[in-house]
């Protein structure tokens, strides 16, 4: 898309938008600088715009002093990576069957998936929790992962993506004697790569930030994800103090924000594609 002329009105609007952009990013600045402040500095009035006596105390505290933040990061990464991988596999399998296969009850089964797209998770929180508990999956990765891997939106998108792929490809492979598994692995999966990469980054982000379910199902400190840890640090007084030490929470926030920020900047175009593939054609 070529550049268009920006009139004087456009310049004013651009300035306002730039100010808004800075305002959106300022809290992140406050988090990063706050993570290097001792408790007294986090409570200073007027606040220190830049930490005057920067300290690594907060990081030391959460990385071993009192909390296993490294473990939390590992848990977050493992849960979101496995959830993303399994979800993409399951969504492609379902999407492929709904797009290209004939079977009893196909439409009913597909509509049922679509209907749950609108279902708020909070409404099924209790039975879901009880089922996971009954299966002995509390405090386990499996308990955090399995309930989110059938992602109705992902199933729908994969069906939409696979449906227009030419049937001749599948037919000629069948005639050549390729097995169904081989067709799936060597034709459907490679051709779905653009959709999978776009959906994959969104699923990764969703499962990384699947805080509600994680906080319900992961109850032991060792099994927490980084988001659960940050929530605890931000809401509770820790270590005999009677006020909340926001320095700890900010350090946790930096640790949690860093990996997803790096991933986002490395894969920005896939994020854009993943977000827009449902709403915008092309």
């Amino acid at each position, binding site marked *: 898309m070529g550049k*268009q*002329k*920006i009139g004087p*009105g*456009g310049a004013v*609007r*651009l300035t306002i*938008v730039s100010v*808004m*952009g800075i305002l*959106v990013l300022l*809290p*992140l600045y*406050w*988090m990063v600088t706050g993570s290097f402040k001792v408790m007294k500095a*986090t*409570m200073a*009035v007027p606040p220190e715009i830049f930490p005057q006596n920067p300290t690594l105390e907060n990081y030391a505290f959460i990385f071993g002093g009192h909390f296993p933040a490294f473990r939390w990061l590992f848990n977050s990464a493992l849960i979101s990576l496995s959830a993303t991988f399994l979800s993409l596999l*399951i969504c492609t*399998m379902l999407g*492929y069957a709904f797009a290209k*296969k*004939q*079977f*009893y009850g196909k439409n009913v089964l597909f509509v049922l998936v679509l209907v*749950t797209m609108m*279902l*708020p998770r*909070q*409404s*099924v*929180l*209790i*039975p*879901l929790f009880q089922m996971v508990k009954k299966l002995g999956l509390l405090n386990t990765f499996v308990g955090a992962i*399995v*309930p989110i*891997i*059938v992602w*109705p939106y992902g199933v729908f998108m994969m069906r939409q993506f696979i449906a227009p792929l030419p049937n001749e490809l599948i037919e000629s492979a069948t005639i050549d004697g390729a097995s169904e598994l081989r067709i799936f692995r060597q034709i459907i999966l490679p051709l779905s790569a653009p959709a999978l990469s776009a959906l994959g980054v969104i699923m990764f*982000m969703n499962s990384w930030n699947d*805080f*509600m379910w994680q906080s319900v199902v992961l109850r032991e400190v060792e099994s927490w994800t980084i*988001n659960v840890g*940050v*929530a605890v640090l*931000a809401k509770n007084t820790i270590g005999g103090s009677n006020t909340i030490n926001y320095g700890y*929470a900010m350090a946790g*926030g930096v640790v949690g*924000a860093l990996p*997803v*920020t790096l*991933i986002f900047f490395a894969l*920005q175009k896939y*994020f854009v594609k993943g*977000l827009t593939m449902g*709403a*915008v*054609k*092309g």
Partner: protein
Amino acid sequence: MQALKKVVTNLYKQRWAWFFIIPGYIIFLLFNIIPTLRTVYTSFFDYNLATMEFAGLGNYIKLFGSQAFRASVRNTLLFAVIITPLSTVVSLLIATTIFPLGNKAQSVYRGAFFLPNVIGGVIISAIWLWIFHPVYGVLNYVLSLFGVQPLLWLADSKTVIFSVVLVIMSWTCGSLIILYVAGLGNIDPCLMEAAKIDGASPAQVFFRITLPLLKPVTTFIVTTQLINCFQLWEVIYLLTDGGPVNASTTLAFDIYKKAFLLGDYGLAAAEGVMLIVLCALVSLTTLRMVSGKEEK
């Protein structure tokens, strides 16, 4: 007998379809459908850690009499009615402003607005919790420079809705901006050029060409924003716990509170059913509005 034989042969022919369907569908039934049915079922029981007795519509009657429930419904609708139009309009304005820029500048702006979304509601809310602190929060300090008296923000029922909306706006607009920028990129620039040559003012071009052509994107955004508002949870959990005195509680949060803090599963299930009904009503209404208008 003949018919049965045919079914069996067909099932055998369909075996590969079932191979791809069954693993995912078992998980789907176990973790989506059965919990939904169980929510409906348990909503008719007096159900907590100690008992499970049939109660008919008891939970629903209790629910409609409860102050917390009425506050939750009111706040959920309030958040939806404020956030959905506000975030849609603000994102559209930002998107149209940054769209004419070059690709590089455009993606810098897009990235800046989307970053909070990537980092997630928990961390963003944790930062704002500190910013809003009445005594040593930076917001009250900055306002004091302009002579504004310190506000309680999250602890005052008059400011709490505004504070939560502010956090959500800073957190969620990024994805809407990306959607609108992509939508704008799909509009054929010739249409605008032609209109300009015909003497249309920029406002006319915007309202007569850009806006109607963005309608599919707008519909998508409004629907997802409404659903997101009905599911507001982590921001409430971190910032306010629904307080002060239910002033910012939402249906989604109240369900959690009733179930996990008060242990009243039956009542929470009844509230869950109400949330499902609300979401279904809104989805069906928007769907009907969209498809109805397209038929004309």
